[in-house]
């Protein structure tokens, strides 16, 4: 009896924590490149702080880059399926190679196929933005793309010192989302690009509210978060998108943006 109670408690705590904290990663180890070249991305749907479960991505609807000189370039064909190994399981993911040649900003956007989350009986679709820069000239990192769910950065996502901050505005089809609910998570490891795996966790959370931090935007959809450590920080505006249903079920259409803070050394 005692044992089964523990089991129930354990099961419900797993469900509770997995209900939060999904993050679509569009990850490359360095977003501030000193010169142009071909870079690699890993597209993984996971819980980047705790790494307790890697989800199977359901597919990709769109993947493209936007640059000042070349405009929008479709990159969907560059995606290759891989298996990504988390601490406890492996999940279906993708990798891609991108020729970041032109100087300046390259905004990468991925729209995944909605993922069915059994625990909540809903679909989740995280429209994800990762911005990389070549050589340091800015030209487009701050553009508003008019996505169904979008975090428009007011801070260059690739040019943040450890200990400084990131400010963004949550939007949906160009309109601000007042008091948007935002989850913040840290990639609590150095992803192993060669072996498609997560490494050991770097930091421990003193309590569950530090694993996935919940913050809120103000009445203008704007939020600021101080970045305590170097590395990758993901911001996810929950249900900010205009699509609310998928295959007859509730859809949480979220906006994700990744920012990278660099250590001062």
């Amino acid at each position: 009896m005692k044992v089964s109670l523990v089991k129930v408690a354990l099961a419900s705590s797993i469900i509770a924590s997995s209900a939060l904290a999904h993050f679509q990663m569009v990850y490359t180890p360095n977003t501030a490149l000193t010169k142009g070249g071909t870079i690699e991305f890993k597209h993984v749907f996971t819980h980047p702080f705790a790494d307790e479960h890697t989800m199977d991505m359901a597919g990709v609807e769109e993947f493209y880059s936007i640059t000042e000189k070349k405009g929008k370039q479709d990159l969907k064909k560059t995606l290759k399926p891989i298996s990504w190994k988390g601490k406890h399981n492996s999940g279906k993911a993708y990798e891609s190679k991108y020729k970041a040649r032109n100087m300046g900003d390259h905004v990468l956007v991925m729209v995944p196929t909605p993922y069915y989350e059994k625990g909540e009986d809903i679909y989740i679709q995280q429209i994800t933005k990762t911005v990389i820069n070549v050589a340091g000239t800015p030209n487009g990192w701050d553009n508003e793309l008019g996505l169904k769910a979008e975090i428009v950065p007011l801070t260059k996502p690739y040019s943040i010192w450890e200990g400084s901050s990131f400010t963004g505005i949550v939007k949906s089809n160009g309109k601000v989302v007042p008091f948007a609910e935002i989850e913040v998570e840290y990639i609590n490891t150095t992803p192993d690009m060669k072996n498609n795996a997560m490494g050991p966790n770097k930091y421990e959370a003193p309590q569950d509210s530090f694993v996935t931090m919940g913050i809120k935007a103000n009445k203008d959809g704007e939020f600021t978060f101080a970045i305590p450590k170097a590395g990758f920080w993901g911001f996810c505006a929950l249900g900010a998108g205009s699509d609310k249903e998928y295959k007859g079920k509730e859809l949480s259409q979220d906006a994700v943006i990744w920012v990278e803070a660099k250590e001062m050394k």
Partner: protein
Amino acid sequence: MFKNILIGLLIASSSAFAHSAIMSCFDEGDGSVTCEGGFSDGSSASGVKFYIEQDGKKVISGKMNEDSEFNFKKPNGTYSAVFDAGEGHQVSISGKDITE
């Protein structure tokens, strides 16, 4: 009069320091190289001087085009590509660091 000059100088010097010159070059893979110039504030480098130096001599010189780019035939031997946006705003990239 003197005050005006002083203000003028101050403005000039602050705008010169506020944005640094930046250049990035890549090998086109067809025997030519393209260099892109720019500034840290995102302003255009169109019309800014650019040259190729070999053994201390300018072997090619011109200006960045309307896209802030300069394309040139890759010279034989060692060379440097120089983006020359005025004193203190020169960026030099060695040919051996320019890859595809």
